């Protein structure tokens, strides 16, 4: 079974700073996907960024980027130039690669990030 671990329950930074959230995972799969989801105080979760394990290049989405270390099974999220709207719970998640069938995600415990003005 796959497990996802986020060791930072809470983090807090000043607006415009850069912050990195950590995530480690355990799997015997060779092909899989990793995700960071954001859950703002309104509670509706949205996808922030996705990384495919077979791609060596780290994914980026505007101010969000990841550091994917496959051998170390590490997947951190970097938020540059943080904004007040980035305040949210962030979840790291894992999904086995599948060509058919349900896409079942395994989530970490979450990191509560607060951006202070």
């Amino acid at each position, binding site marked *: 079974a796959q497990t996802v671990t986020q060791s930072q329950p809470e983090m807090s930074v000043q607006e415009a700073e850069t912050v990195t959230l950590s995530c480690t995972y355990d799997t015997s799969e060779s092909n899989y996907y990793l995700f960071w989801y954001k859950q703002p105080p309104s509670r509706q979760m949205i996808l922030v960024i996705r990384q495919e394990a077979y791609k060596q290049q780290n994914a980026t989405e505007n101010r969000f980027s990841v550091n994917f270390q496959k051998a170390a099974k590490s997947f951190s999220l970097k938020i540059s130039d943080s904004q007040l709207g980035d305040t949210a719970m962030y979840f790291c998640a894992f999904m086995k690669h599948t060509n058919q*069938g349900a896409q079942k995600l395994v*989530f970490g415990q979450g990191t509560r990030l607060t951006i202070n003005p």
Partner: protein
Amino acid sequence: NAGVTQTPKFRILKIGQSMTLQCAQDMNHNYMYWYRQDPGMGLKLIYYSVGAGITDKGEVPNGYNVSRSTTEDFPLRLELAAPSQTSVYFCASTKPGQLGELFFGEGSRLTVL
């Protein structure tokens, strides 16, 4: 766009009562999911469905039942509610090819006293 709609948003139950959490999506997604989120924990998969008439257990199915009679709806039934079922419940949906991008509802906060 409505997306994924969950009702009710809040509910208090007494031990032993039953209730149904409703979930509907208007995106014609094949796959639907129910997760629960306990304080300080990640989301745990309760049940999922790959299409109308097809459901399967997730990681924590005990105490719950689901049905999927239409593509749009995926209700979650709690029978004989217990305090351990106090949680926030999320419904989500997606379709083949979305590569793990799930679309979530706003959640239903359930308290069992």
